[in-house]
């Protein structure tokens, strides 16, 4: 069962890394606006022409 040392040993630093990234991103304001990103991604100006629909 000592393989658990490797698994936890890898998972915890990675999870901790994710936590650090989360805090970093939150402090930089990534999650301040939790509404307009959903609209913004729809409005990509298509420089060459109209969107094609199926």
């Amino acid at each position, binding site marked *: *069962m*000592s*393989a*658990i*040392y*490797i*698994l936890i*040993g*890898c*998972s915890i*630093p*990675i*999870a*901790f*890394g*994710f936590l*650090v990234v*989360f805090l*970093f*991103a939150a402090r930089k304001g*990534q*999650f301040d*606006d*939790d*509404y307009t*990103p*959903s*609209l*913004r*991604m*729809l409005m*990509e*100006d298509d*420089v*060459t*022409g109209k*969107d*094609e*629909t*199926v």
Partner: protein
Amino acid sequence: MSTNIERFDYDNRIVKQFAIATALWGAVGMLAGLIVALQLVYPVFNFNLPYTTFGRLRPLHTNAVIFAFVGNGIFMGVYYSLQRLLKARMWSDKLSAIHFWGWQLIIVAAALTLVFGFTTGKEYAELEWPIDILITLVWVVFGVNMFMTIIRRRERHLYVAIWFYIATWVTVAMLHIVNSIELPVSFLKSYSWYAGVQDALVQWWYGHNAVAFFLTTPYLGMMYYFIPKAANRPVYSYRLSIIHFWALIFIYIWAGPHHLLYSALPDWAQSLGTVFSVMLIAPSWGGMINGLLTLRGAWDRVREDVVLKFMVVAVTAYGMATFEGPMLSLKNVNAISHFTDWTIAHVHVGALGWNGFLTFGVLYWLIPRMWRTPIYSRRAANLHFWIGTLGILLYAIPMYWAGWMQSSMWKQFTPEGQLQYQFIETVNAMLPFYAIRAVGGLLFLAGALIMIWNLMKTAAAGNFLANEPAEAPALARNVQMEGKEHWHRVIERRPVQMLILSLVLVGIGGLIEMIPTFMVKTNIPTIEAVKPYTALELQGRDIYIREGCYTCHSQMIRPFRSETERYGEYSKAGEFVYDHPFQWGSKRTGPDLAREGTDKLRRMDSWHYNHMADPTSMSPGSIMPAYPWLFSNKIDVESTIPKLEAMVTLGVPYTADYVTNGEAELKKQARTIYETLKVDESKLLTGDEGLREDHEIIALIAYLQRLGRDITQTETASTQTP
């Protein structure tokens, strides 16, 4: 604030390349799936060739659909959406090309090595060590390209899909590296560094997280881009997407042990897996809810638009699979489902419904867009949708039925307290369901082929836009285009973050160095009577792995009365300490073999000889393929000492004398088996070369006759103890 509008192009060529690869490998992988499905009903489809047995084609199917079909699908979706969400072209066209061609090279290498029997014997990680290295290199190339594009972005805010792509990249890198730690013996042969229970745990930590971070997170990222785009509606709740993303990636890692319930894995680890698997319903359904409710107010468009139809079924299938999965992780449910076709049904609801249909939806949306022309035939696309949906139903429903029936039959006792059914009777009961499932798979494949035709016609009628013009203001920080300086500036302003990140990285490195020293003393309880395999048995085990026997036969007896009655003493952790890799298996298409060599179940050497030559000769009604090449191939005697030495490196206690005399020991045991067989020579189904002691079948017999003996014998009688 800069008002400098920059003009640039999105790279559509790389998306086109990945899209074509996705569609073509999808057809190949599904065809492989159809063949293996047919092989279970009509064993003639094994074609009596080593390259095409179920044991070798099943890994070809799984690798093709996961890494070639879904893999290329991921890259297609990521390369398209990443550029547009970040308002930046991929950082390096060269790296994009290396990634694409590198990945296809991996697939071709996989296809060739798997049919030739070069396999590690670990599910979804079968590829041998040179290909593992190649995968790592290509994955790094992908990561560098992706992260540099993120750094050079013109849209500061990272849309939720990007988070999913980042988590995918990081976690897949970790999973692949950790599970692929293996000691090479020769150019295309290696042994897992882990053994037995350890190997099982690492394997399914990897295996379940392959589902999580290869089949789920990148596709959720794609869902968050392509559904809003296709429906022209914003994501239902962006806030929910943030919450469920973080919850998902934290919880998923711990779910792996649910593949090992009631096995020899320690109980506390099993319970951990169960608890986290059940918790996983919440973040998974967060994704499903978000995907489906995005279509609020647009359901009338789903009726008209085949792209949305595919995507709705995909998300629904995702919801079904992520409810079923946690249910299957409950020990009482798992006691019924494990080793049965219920697991197969569950896999394919997710694979065909979620991964398959979302891929199709994205292809139908992307191809017309990139070729600036409507889809060639909406009717054919709709036909694909209905055929595919019917295919999923005809796949899953028979498999549910078969799984329940199989499990019930295995567990059934007569009123007198005997097992009601012989194993072969349960196999026969499955055949009608296997047949219907093959029809389901055929329909799914047919739909995919219709799609390929339709998309080819669409592309032919259109005008491919290789570089799509775009414009966006530069980010204030992005004015200098010096890559290195920019990266440093970002980090330099945040010394605290830099410190923490450095510590994390160093910590990982330190752990990797320190842990092996801890691992020297294992805390799996050692069983005195358990000894390493003999040289001949080791060769036989490698043949067992090569032929993929574990794809149909398990080696893990669970502590249920129905199993101990049928197979003998349930499997203990300490029995597997020398198994590099473990071979517990995931499925019982054939009976469990963990105690095949014990007095309770043991058969004569001649039975095994004839059974491998023609299974139906010893087991009428068997669907197992024949293995005639074992009766002409010679045992690779020269590899014996290198293999023993590798095992010693991995901690198996062969004495130095035994290793030096490895070849002699092998030949001595082979002769003993040969002498036993010679007595019954007239009854043997020998090949063209007749009975010989240097044929591979002798080694395989030695291995099979050793299985499970050590703890059930009072003396370890006929086997040599090294």
